[in-house]
């Protein structure tokens, strides 16, 4: 505490606010899948007391809404209410395969926001999402790269049938341009709700647009990692 005060006084005297270790940093997010779309991203700098999920534990209602329908509002409100600095929907819509979005986060006024989390639903999936979970932002200026994996929220059965994006309703949503490659009349997969967040096993898909077991086209399959994140600490 004493040391902190001294640092603060020194910073004030010298006219620079260097108390916050990573006051401003850039985050570039690239969708590295061949055929999966990311719904609006939530990028958040927050304290070590906050996290959007824990692997192995049940998803919160806010995480479920994001993973099943792409709705990040609940997560964003919960995080900002606890002091986090958020960037919502930096791509202005879907982030297509092979494309990048960039955002600058400034944590000047909240110096304990030293952790970075990023989430977005993956389309087309039932409840799949890409995530960076509680990553410690380095204090040393530099360029840092992280590979992100696909998670399954465990809240909806992976039936791979066209349906709803509302939490608790079966099937996956297919807004344009995902709709163009989405099949119909798939018989569906007899899958169950897992009940906990875990690494997504991937979608099976099929080549039959008017039937088969899945309404997901084979072009939407993936393997981890699904995103590349480059953080530039200034």
């Amino acid at each position, binding site marked *: 505490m004493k040391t902190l005060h001294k640092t603060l006084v020194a910073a004030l005297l010298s006219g620079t606010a260097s108390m916050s270790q990573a006051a401003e940093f850039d985050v570039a997010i690239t969708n590295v899948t061949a055929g999966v779309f990311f719904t609006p991203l939530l990028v958040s700098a927050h304290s070590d007391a906050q996290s959007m999920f824990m*692997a*192995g*534990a049940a998803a919160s209602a806010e995480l479920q809404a994001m993973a099943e329908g792409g709705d990040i509002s609940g997560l964003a409100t919960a995080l900002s209410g606890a002091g986090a600095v958020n960037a919502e929907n930096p791509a202005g819509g879907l982030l297509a395969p092979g494309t990048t979005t960039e955002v600058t986060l400034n944590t000047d006024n909240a110096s304990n926001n030293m952790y970075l989390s990023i989430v977005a639903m993956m389309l087309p999936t039932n409840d799949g999402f890409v995530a960076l979970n509680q990553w410690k932002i380095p204090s040393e200026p530099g360029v840092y790269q992280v590979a992100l*994996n*696909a998670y*399954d929220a*465990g809240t909806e059965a*992976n039936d791979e049938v066209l349906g709803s994006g509302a939490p608790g309703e079966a099937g996956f949503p297919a807004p344009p341009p995902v709709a163009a490659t989405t099949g119909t009349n798939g018989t569906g*997969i007899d*899958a*169950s709700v*897992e*009940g*906990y967040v*875990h*690494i*997504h*096993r*991937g979608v*099976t898909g*099929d080549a039959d647009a008017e039937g088969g*077991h899945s309404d997901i086209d084979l072009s939407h399959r993936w*393997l*981890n990692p699904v995103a590349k994140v480059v953080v530039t600490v200034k």
Partner: protein
Amino acid sequence: MTIQQTSLILCAAAVLSACGGKDSDPEMATFEVAVTNLTAAQPLSPMTLAVASPDWSLFELAEPASVALEQIAESGDNSALLAELEGNAQVMESISGTGIVMPGMTATFEISVPESDLDQASLSAVTMLVNTNDALTAVRGVALDAIELGGSVHQSMAAYDAGTESNNELAATIPGPAAGGEGFNAERDDSDRILVHPGVVGVLGGRADSVLDEEHRFDNPVAGIVITRIE
């Protein structure tokens, strides 16, 4: 043997008084090790943990599996590996899990290493994905001396194919609850090299006689390990 000699030399040179009377009660570094099963439907067999010299290796990629490792990969039985670890001078400590780690669950262990041996202590862990023919997941040689008190290291655990049994996915050859088939078989009818696992095919993937469903598929990482220094 080498480790003991090294620590004796260090004691003699630097802190003789602190070492002499404390042989029976050395300063210990204690770590909590938590392994989480990140799959949808692949229970993990009882974990095997080993703290060993960095010169020791659980296995090498693209090399044949030991028989002890084959037994874990095909049946989940770690008794042979534990016996080997206990008889190995390079291994400081070995621990066996007490039960299956179900999907989404976490198994937690505590390990203690004399501080004087920390620079020679690396952690390895291995377990079977039981709804497969011979899939393993493991971490190999995580250096413990790099972890500060209160700090932790996170590592992702990938799935490996032991290469000792064909991935035919038949009910008769998979020991997990998806099938209840045979476990260990000394015959080696696959590549006989440990490689990154190609994944489960299942009926939907085109293997019509597979006993495995869509839910038994997995992508990496199949497990996560967090090592925290608590003392």
